[in-house]
Every structure is written in C-alpha cells, then in structure tokens.
C-alpha cells in the first residue's frame, strides 16, 4: 500500500503542472496529495509555481522598455509607403 502511494519529488513536481491543467488521473491526484502532505520542499515548489504563474502574466505592465525614436520613425515610414 505504501509503495502504491510512494512517489518521488521529481515526479511530484511534474504532476503539479498536470494538476494545474486539470490533466491528472485520480490515482495521481491521490499520490500527489499524500506526497505534498509530508514533503515541505515539494509543497514550497507548488506555492512558488503558483506565484510565478500569477505574476508572469503581468510582466509587460511592469517592465521599463520602449521603442527607440528611430524604430518609431521606421514604422511610420513603412506605413506611409504601404498606402
């Protein structure tokens, strides 16, 4: 029984992504829950994965980047020529 539910940290972290996507079988879900209940490192991985997912999406709103005036001019010329 113990062996049936015994999974490694590598496999656990793999299943965490599958769970996010709701592509996980019931047996794997149970194994995952059992492992996360006893392994603090994998539990941290799950929390930190969630954190990365939550924040990655907003990246473009927070970075400092802008087109150079040359690049903008190039686009304007291209648009003018496309008419």
């Amino acid at each position, binding site marked *: 029984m113990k062996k049936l539910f015994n999974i490694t940290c590598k496999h656990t972290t793999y299943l965490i992504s599958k769970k996010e996507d709701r592509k996980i079988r019931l047996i794997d879900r149970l194994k995952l829950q059992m492992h996360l209940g006893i392994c603090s490192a*994998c539990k941290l991985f799950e929390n930190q994965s*969630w954190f990365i997912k939550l924040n990655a999406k907003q*990246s*473009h709103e*927070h970075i400092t980047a802008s087109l150079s005036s040359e*690049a903008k001019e190039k686009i304007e010329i*291209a*648009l003018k020529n496309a*008419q």
Partner: protein
Amino acid sequence: METKNKLQATDWVNNYSDALYKYTVVRVSDTGIAEDIVQETFLSAWRNKDNFKGEASEKNWLYTICKNKIIDYYRKKGSSIISYANEDASDNFFDDAEHWTKNDSPKEWGINYQQQVEKKEFYTILEKCKGKLQQMQQSVFVMKYLEDLETEEICKVLGITSSNYWVLIHRAKLGLRTCLEKNWVNI
C-alpha cells in the same frame, strides 16, 4: 486624405507602439525581433484598416494582431528546433532516488505566494531568468503562462507531442524557480 492617413499613422505609433513593444518583448525576449513584430503588426493593421469594424477598441484590435504575429513567430521557431528533449541539466535538481538535492531543494521565500508583485526589480529578474531557459522551454512557458493558450494549441503550434510539452513545462518551472530564488529572493 493623405494628410488624414499620415496623421493616423503618427497617432497609432505614438499611442500604441510602446505598449505593443512591451507586450512583445517579454514574450520573445529579443529586442530586434520584438521591433520587427511591432512593425508587422502595424503594417497588417494598416492594410486591413478598412475591415476594422470598431467592435473591439482599436487598441484591442492591434493587440489581437500582435498576439497572432507572436504565435506565428513561435510556430516558425518551433519548426526550426529539431532537438530539445535532453538538452539541459534539470535532472541535476534531483538525486539518484529522484528527491531534491540539498542545494536545489526549494527554500522558503518569506512572501505571500498568492500576492501580485509590484516591484519592477522582480520583473527585470524574471525576464533575465526566462532568457536563460533553453529555447523550447521558454516557448512553452510564454505560450502557457503569458499567452494563456491551451496545452493542445501549444503542441500544435510548436509541433510537439503532449508528453514533450509536460517535460518542457516541468523543466521550465524548475529552472525559473531556482533562478528566482538565487537572484531575487534574499534568504
């Protein structure tokens, strides 16, 4: 008429080019490619502006075109990468028994993991860490977490199987997490 068009072109570039550029550069991680994609976005929109029905806002319309250009870029990139499955050392995170090694075992970051970060420093480091990922890992990560595409769609665009996808996204997350822990979190 020509003056009006000229005005509109200038307005478009002034109003939207920086926002589209930011949107693109975090997705392709290359300033030159991002510039090209923004230019192509404007050109496509310009050529089709008579078809713009005003159902969405002009801004959303441009974003939709831009998003499609980014996916096209990934499609081309996916088909040009032949070998990717075993190119990195992610397995080093785990020991022979497939449990975390002492060095790579996740540490507590001391933050609320449910909270959005406002500090620019975090996003600069996230970009750098993303840039360090192997190319296909970066592609799946961006398409999944930035573009919000379904897994099946990502596999189709990149020409990979779903098991390739799971391995790639798994490795991308392992790599990003470790890089953030080393460079952003002060433990």
